[in-house]
């Protein structure tokens, strides 16, 4: 499963990398966009300032008229009319004399021109029709320094339905004496239109604020400040502030470059990862099913192992004969859970009947054949009179229907405990060794191989005889021992096996330890079975 997590890790890594890439490029683009917006805002503010600077110029012009022409009220009215023609966006302009400097001393005099329609202008002396001293443009301009203009707040001037606001400045005579205030008005509606014209984006809102923070005019609603990006600039020299704002969503809508491509790739990446994970999940499920099946199989094999080990007799027997004592030890170590090796024995009066065998092949098929063989051997108990008879009976049954050509090599013996006389019949099994403490040389019993059982049911086996002296040991084994290999793949062989037997004699554990020592770390390649039968004199 480790292998499968690799693509997930890679994909996740890729997605993280792309997410970082997305964030970086998004920020980069956003910064770019902000710079671009800053620039546009500045342009808009300049445009606006340029437009309203007309008022400043207009009042300058009026002041100049006065100084240059120094003419009467009627002429001034005509001149003011020309100013409105020159500045078509102006609504109104006037020159209001301080009463003490008025052409009619002590009287208010204020030549005024204002726009009636787009191309119709009228001019007259407003005299005392206007409460000058209550007007911010008048009082404010008076308070100012020389040459310092004054921007009024919007107010109702009585001639126009809309609010107006005024730029006003002081006017001096030749003696540099303050004589009048010149003013020029814009309507708020016109200003609002102007703001609309200069706004850099369709979703932008432009607002004009006075010095004290009062909203003079705005082109839209910008009350949700938190959702908006604000650009603010003081319109020097007016002291008014122009605030242009765009909704934050404007940024999202405007970002179309690399980050959008990255986002697309990112989303497809996540989709692919999702599909991948689903695929892996399905594979995992399949794996789990197989694993469950394997576990079940393992459990069944364990049960089979237990059954097979149950079929085998206990691994140790002591028996007392009239003149001798017998010690039998046996071990079976299957290569897999179950194996094809077999051994069995039983006592009948003074006789020990025993069998050791090896079914060709491994695993379950061999184990099934093995259990049949053991049962056939046991079935002969009580009525068999010779190993040969048992061998032939087993052979006849096992050969009857054996399509897989499985066969058993077996050695069946009958040991008379009191006399040490051994009668045996061999079916292709490897020759047991007899170890005598006198000769100290394990030697194989003389053997007629005959043929393995399970193949030719009519085969006539030969029977042989040998003799065990007191203290002799008969060592029976399967080829799993002599053909055991070490890490260099060298086989144990008869010579080394005989040496081991000489050292260990009838001690089964010691013999098997020596075989294991020879094998080292090499894996067991075959079932291993060992049975020793040791005879001692009665004490």
């Amino acid at each position, binding site marked *: 499963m480790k292998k499968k997590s690799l693509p997930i890790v890679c994909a996740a890594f890729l997605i993280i990398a792309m997410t970082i890439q997305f964030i970086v490029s998004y920020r980069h683009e956003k910064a770019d966009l902000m710079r671009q917006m800053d620039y546009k805002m500045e342009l808009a503010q300049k445009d606006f300032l340029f437009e309203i600077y007309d008022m400043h110029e207009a009042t300058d012009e009026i002041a100049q008229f006065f100084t240059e022409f120094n003419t009467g009220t009627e002429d001034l009215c005509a001149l003011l009319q020309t100013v409105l023609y020159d500045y078509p966006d102006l609504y109104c302009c006037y020159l209001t004399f301080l009463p003490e400097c008025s052409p009619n001393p002590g009287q208010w005099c204020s030549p005024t021109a204002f726009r009636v329609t787009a191309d119709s202008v009228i001019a007259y002396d407003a005299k005392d029709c206007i409460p000058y001293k209550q007007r911010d443009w008048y009082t404010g301009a008076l308070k100012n320094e020389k040459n310092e203009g004054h921007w009024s707040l919007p107010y109702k001037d009585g001639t126009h339905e809309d609010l107006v606001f005024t730029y006003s400045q002081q006017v001096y005579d030749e003696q540099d004496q303050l004589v009048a205030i010149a003013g020029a008005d814009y309507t708020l509606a016109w200003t609002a239109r102007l703001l609309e014209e200069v706004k850099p984006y369709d979703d932008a809102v432009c607002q004009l604020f006075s010095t004290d923070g009062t909203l003079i005019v705005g082109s839209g609603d910008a009350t949700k400040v938190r959702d908006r990006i604000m650009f603010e600039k003081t319109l020097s020299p007016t002291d008014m502030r122009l605030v242009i704002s765009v909704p934050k969503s404007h940024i999202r809508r405007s970002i179309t470059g690399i980050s959008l491509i990255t986002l697309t790739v990112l989303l497809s990446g996540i989709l692919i990862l999702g599909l991948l994970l689903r695929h892996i999940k399905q594979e995992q499920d399949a794996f789990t099913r197989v694993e469950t099946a394997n576990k079940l199989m393992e459990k069944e094999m364990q049960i089979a192992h237990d059954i097979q080990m149950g079929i085998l007799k206990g691994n140790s027997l002591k028996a007392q004969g009239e003149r001798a004592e017998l010690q039998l030890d046996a071990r079976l170590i299957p290569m897999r859970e179950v194996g094809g090796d077999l051994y069995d024995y039983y006592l009948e009066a003074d006789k020990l009947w025993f069998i050791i065998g090896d079914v060709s092949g491994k695993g379950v098929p061999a184990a099934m054949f093995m259990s049949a063989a053991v049962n056939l051997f046991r079935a002969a108990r009580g009525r068999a009179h010779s190993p040969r008879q048992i061998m032939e009976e087993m052979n006849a049954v096992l050969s009857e229907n054996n399509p897989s050509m499985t066969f058993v*090599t077996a050695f069946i013996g009958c040991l008379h405990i009191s006399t040490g006389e051994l009668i045996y019949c061999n079916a292709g099994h490897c020759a047991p060794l007899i170890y005598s403490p006198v000769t100290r040389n394990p030697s194989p019993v003389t*053997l007629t191989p005959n043929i393995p059982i399970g193949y030719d049911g009519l085969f006539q086996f030969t029977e042989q005889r040998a003799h065990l002296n007191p203290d002799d040991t008969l060592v029976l084994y399967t080829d799993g021992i002599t053909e055991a290999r070490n890490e260099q793949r060298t086989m144990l062989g008869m010579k080394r096996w005989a040496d081991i037997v000489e050292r260990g004699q009838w001690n089964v554990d010691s013999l098997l330890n020596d075989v294991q020592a020879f094998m080292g770390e090499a894996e067991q390649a075959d079932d291993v079975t060992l049975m020793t039968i040791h005879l001692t004199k009665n004490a």
Partner: protein
Amino acid sequence: MITITFETLPEKTCVRLSGELDIAATTNQVDELQQVLNIADKALLIDCSELEYISSAGLRFFMQLKKESQAKGGSIRIAHLNEDVSDIFRMSGFHNLFTIE
């Protein structure tokens, strides 16, 4: 691991077995061994000069081969067994079942 080579002569087919015929070979090389079983109707000379080792699983293959051969009317002769393999044939009684040269 067993390597099998075939040589068709006018009067017989020579099957040369090289390597080890053990449980691993009989389990993992079923297809190759089946090729030998497929021509069991012929007169086969099994050349074992390069057969280094045979286990009981390998012997079972010979058993199967003999059965096939008898069923299909072929014949089997085994030749050039080395000493170790010959011992195994002898000890297991297989020399009683085959014609060994």
